[in-house]
């Protein structure tokens, strides 16, 4: 496919890897903030071709994973209301809340529908005017403009049975929270490319300015990621931290002004709770006053029991980059993709799920003589 294949060229990949290997660096921790980057890094075997001194840490950029149990419990309570059709993305279905998951309540009769796009949810609302259709809006700045667009579209079409439970979150405040916690040493950030198509590069400027840490906004193909790592190492060795854009074909400095306008029209920025991190100031989006009537939090009386966490689950530490999945006692034992205990094992972009798929299964396959998923620069294919 055009604009994909060109960024997977094997020889260029080896060339970039060589550039990285030839650089004299001290031990360096680079954090990929975005879960989509984590998947790409494992899928393309990038960790295996980096020098040992360069350590990639996975950050809190899996929206499903950082949604706290209290919010999932709320969605489940809404779904149990016989008047409600709950709509959401497939990733949310199996995430365990405090007492059950959306999948489990659907199995016993709740009307929950998985949609590919919020526009599908809008159509469900249009076709079920006697029901209240609630969309569970999860995701970062890549996704929240689609929610904002649908809210504006519903208003324009006069659809008044479409409601929103917004658990949308913002990435830059979470990066600040990680830096302020001082729990993990970060030498450079691989910044999320698709979030940045919306917000641009300016919202990361505080990171080099206040914390002296380099940032490179990266695309998702293997050559993009390798080039971004090379650019970060350049900044580190020159001791000139700044925000560079590697993903120039998609990211402009100013982002997408129309999407940003829709976001500010529909949402207010609010403090939000992140799983494993706690409340981060100004890191969430709630519907603004003008749209309160379609805010499920205001329109429905949602009663939930106090939230609780699964015993032994280390998702919180993993989301902060403090622990790796192998340091969790449940990983690949009590917690597997078939029987996930925590959200990091549920979401296809969760760190535990990615490690399990590319490391554990790779190992198991290697013992049976099958091709391995974990030892190949798979992707650097022609």
């Amino acid at each position: 496919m055009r604009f994909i294949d060109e960024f997977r060229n094997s020889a260029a990949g080896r060339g970039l890897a060589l550039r990285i290997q030839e650089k004299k660096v001290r031990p360096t921790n680079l954090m990929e903030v975005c879960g989509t980057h984590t998947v790409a890094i494992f899928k393309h075997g990038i960790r295996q071709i980096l020098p040992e001194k360069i350590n990639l840490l996975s950050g809190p950029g899996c929206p499903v994973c950082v949604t706290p149990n209290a919010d999932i419990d709320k969605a489940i309570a809404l779904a149990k209301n016989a008047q409600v059709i709950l709509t959401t993305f497939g990733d949310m279905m199996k995430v365990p809340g405090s007492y059950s998951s959306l999948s489990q309540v659907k199995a016993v009769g709740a009307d929950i529908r998985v949609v590919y796009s919020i526009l599908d949810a809008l159509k469900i609302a249009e076709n079920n005017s006697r029901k209240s259709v609630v969309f569970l809006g999860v995701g970062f700045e890549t996704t929240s403009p689609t929610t904002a667009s649908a809210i504006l579209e519903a208003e324009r079409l006069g659809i008044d049975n479409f409601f929103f439970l917004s658990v949308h979150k913002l990435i830059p405040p979470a990066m600040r929270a990680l830096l302020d916690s001082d729990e993990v040493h970060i030498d450079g950030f691989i910044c999320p490319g698709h979030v940045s198509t919306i917000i641009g590069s300016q919202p990361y400027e505080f990171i080099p300015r206040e914390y002296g840490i380099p940032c490179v906004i990266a695309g998702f193909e293997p050559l993009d990621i390798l080039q971004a790592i090379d650019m970060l190492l350049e900044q580190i060795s020159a001791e000139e931290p700044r925000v560079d854009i590697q993903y120039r074909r998609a990211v402009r400095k100013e982002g997408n002004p129309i999407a940003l306008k829709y976001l500010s029209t529909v949402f207010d920025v609010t403090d939000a709770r992140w799983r494993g991190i706690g409340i981060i100031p100004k890191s969430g989006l709630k519907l603004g006053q003008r749209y309160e009537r379609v805010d499920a939090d205001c329109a429905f009386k949602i009663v939930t029991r106090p939230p609780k966490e699964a015993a032994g689950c280390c998702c919180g530490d993993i989301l902060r980059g403090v622990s790796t999945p192998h340091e969790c006692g449940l990983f690949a034992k009590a917690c597997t993709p078939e029987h996930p205990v925590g959200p990091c094992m549920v979401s296809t972009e969760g760190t535990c799920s990615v490690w399990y798929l590319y490391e554990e299964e790779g190992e198991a396959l290697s013992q049976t003589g099958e091709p391995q998923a974990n030892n190949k620069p798979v992707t650097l294919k022609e």
Partner: protein
Amino acid sequence: MCLAVPVRVLQIDSLEALVEVGGLARQASIMLVPDVQVGDYVLLHAGFAIQKLDEKEAEETIRLFEEIAEGMGD
């Protein structure tokens, strides 16, 4: 969840477009990029085009990668 793929715009009708995804045509909203034209490439995420691809920038990056590849003697 932040996955977005580059797709080509085939047809435009107001703020709706038909885009080509892996040889198949599908509907996408262009509310967030209303200025795109037929033939442009956009990034598709959850049914919405979220940004137009800058083909000139893409070609420059590709050219740089080709130079690196040539340096490897392949």
